């Protein structure tokens, strides 16, 4: 399989223009009506204090966080679908979401109110769940069998869901609301400090995945072909699996559960004709970022001043595309 670098210039141009347009819309549109001039001035730090805060500390970090979450989940999904050779693979199937949710819910139930503690607990939970899934798969199969990895992830996720239900069954209404909102995903609380941290993480994870893209290309052909082509199958599978899971865990800890991005976006990009995993990762990152920015824009403008759960809007927005493309995938 050859990399088609520089191929499909229209696709890349379209994706990039769409991403920039969505980001501009995300910063320009909101409950408070602002003229484009006022938005631009506020971005440069001019104008009245309220407008500057609205643009620079409310909308801009939100857009940035949405972009990072979308990019991270989509790249994670693209890599996992490749190494596991399964079109249904996605980060949330690996116990990442379940583990993160257990961590977050436990922190919420324990009364964590500070902004920093819930994400940390979520990340710890996700890492723990992924490690358990990997250990289980290894203990059972002895090698990085994609089917075992998938099944171990699904089972760990089911266990995590059961744990969440037991913890929440007797929780007071306030805790329940907190936990439910966390599980529905949101970037409403975005702050620059958290965005910077996530940006580093996603960039590092994304680069590591891109560096392994050639291995993923080969692994996606099948284990035997990969081995014949000189790829150390197990080591590569494990490494990509772990990186993809950690990238997804970071997004989950920053924004809760934002469903369907990791599953849908890689398929959409593949349906546009992208085959090599290096291009697929890049395309998924751009498309995922755009999708989540757009979903967040809808989430906060459809029913103002209330906000809709981001994870639900991404799915509502993405599923029609996905269905329309299903024919191409078949």
């Amino acid at each position, binding site marked *: 399989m050859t990399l088609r670098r520089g191929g499909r210039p229209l696709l890349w141009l379209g994706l990039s223009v769409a991403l920039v347009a969505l980001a501009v819309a995300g910063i320009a549109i909101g409950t408070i009506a602002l003229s484009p001039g006022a938005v631009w001035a506020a971005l440069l730090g001019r104008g009245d204090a309220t407008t500057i805060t609205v643009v620079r500390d*409310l909308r801009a970090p939100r857009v940035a966080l949405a972009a990072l979450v979308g990019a991270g989940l989509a790249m994670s999904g693209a890599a996992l679908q490749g190494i596991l050779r399964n079109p249904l693979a996605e980060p949330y199937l690996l116990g990442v979401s379940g583990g993160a949710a257990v961590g977050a819910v436990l922190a919420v139930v324990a009364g964590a*109110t500070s902004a920093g503690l819930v994400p940390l607990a979520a990340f710890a939970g996700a890492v723990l769940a992924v490690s358990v899934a990997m250990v289980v798969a290894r203990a059972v199969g002895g090698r990085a069998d994609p089917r075992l990895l998938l099944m171990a992830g699904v089972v760990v996720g089911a266990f995590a869901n059961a744990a969440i239900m037991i913890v929440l069954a007797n929780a007071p209404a*306030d805790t329940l609301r*907190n936990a439910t909102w966390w599980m529905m995903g*949101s970037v409403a609380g975005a702050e*620059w400090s958290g965005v910077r941290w996530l940006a580093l993480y996603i960039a590092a994870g994304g680069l590591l995945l891109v560096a392994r893209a050639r291995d993923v290309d080969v692994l996606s052909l099948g284990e035997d072909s990969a081995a014949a082509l000189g790829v150390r199958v197990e080591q590569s599978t494990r490494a990509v699996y772990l990186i993809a899971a950690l990238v997804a865990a970071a997004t989950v800890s920053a924004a809760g559960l934002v469903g369907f991005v990791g599953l849908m976006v890689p398929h959409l990009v593949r349906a546009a004709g992208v085959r090599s995993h290096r291009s697929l990762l890049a395309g998924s990152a751009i498309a995922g970022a755009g999708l989540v920015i757009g979903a967040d824009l809808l989430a906060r403008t459809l029913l103002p*001043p209330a906000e809709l759960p981001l994870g639900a809007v991404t799915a509502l927005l993405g599923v029609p595309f996905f269905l329309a493309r299903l024919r191409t995938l078949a």
Partner: protein
Amino acid sequence: MRDLIAPSCVVAGTLLMERVPMFFSRLAFTLVIASSLTLVACASERTPVRKSSTVRVVDDFGDSVEIAPAARIASLSPTTTELLFAIGAGARVVGRTSYDEWPAEARRVPDLGPGIRPNVEAILAAKPDLVVLYAANDNRDAARALRAAGLRTIGLKVDRIADFKRATALLGAVAGDSAGAQAVVDSVQRTLDRVHAATADLHHPRVAWQLWDTPLLVLGSGSYQHELIEIAGAENVYADDTKPNTQTSLEDLIRRDPDVILTDSSRASAIRRSSRWRGVRAVREGHVLAVDDETSSRASVKLGMAAVTLARLLHPEASIR
């Protein structure tokens, strides 16, 4: 406040139930007096009550239920437990939820678990004559099961000051101490009137009361806390929303531009630290006020205290007793 409660031993003749309906603003308790309630009641307890004296009311589930004086009451919400103790009927309470922690004596009552989707068997085991549930949809099944088991069960939902009054009157009737209940209501009302009078001529700041951060919830006008804001001499910028609380966005809050942000103490310090909240003028000007959670978390006997606390917080320059 407890010293204001009337002596609990009351031997009254006919209960004047026609006084009660005027309290019932929301879900009008349509009282059909089946027979006059004869009160042979002593809050010092254990007096046998006459089973024949029943009253039919429509509870907050919307169900028509018969109530009668009860010697053993399972009270499955913090507010009703607090009210029963305030009336002087604490000794009749044979069960409470895990969250009923006030007054301190209430903690000695057996804990029957959660008040939402309660454990029906645990309630049956406490052998109450009357079960008081929080009237949420989640509790309808429990109410049905308890009634099927032959237990008198009423659902109460106390959102507004008027709800507090009718709930207190109703609990007074079932505890056989309507005079005690009336004393509690009167004492709270006197304090509210006093605070209202003291703040009436002061400048009324425009406030937003933040209740929750994710999602951002603020106080609408459907709650007793909204009424407390007005009694304490201020104006709620979300008064146009008739729900007890309403979901909003920070941008919407900025647009409404309140003079003061009210919230609990941990949220107040989070707001003062947050870069996002700096868009709110009240926050930039340092007008984030922490409300004492303990006094303002329920529409109960502490309403008067809560009004005083709130008025002092909002009008530090005035002397409010």
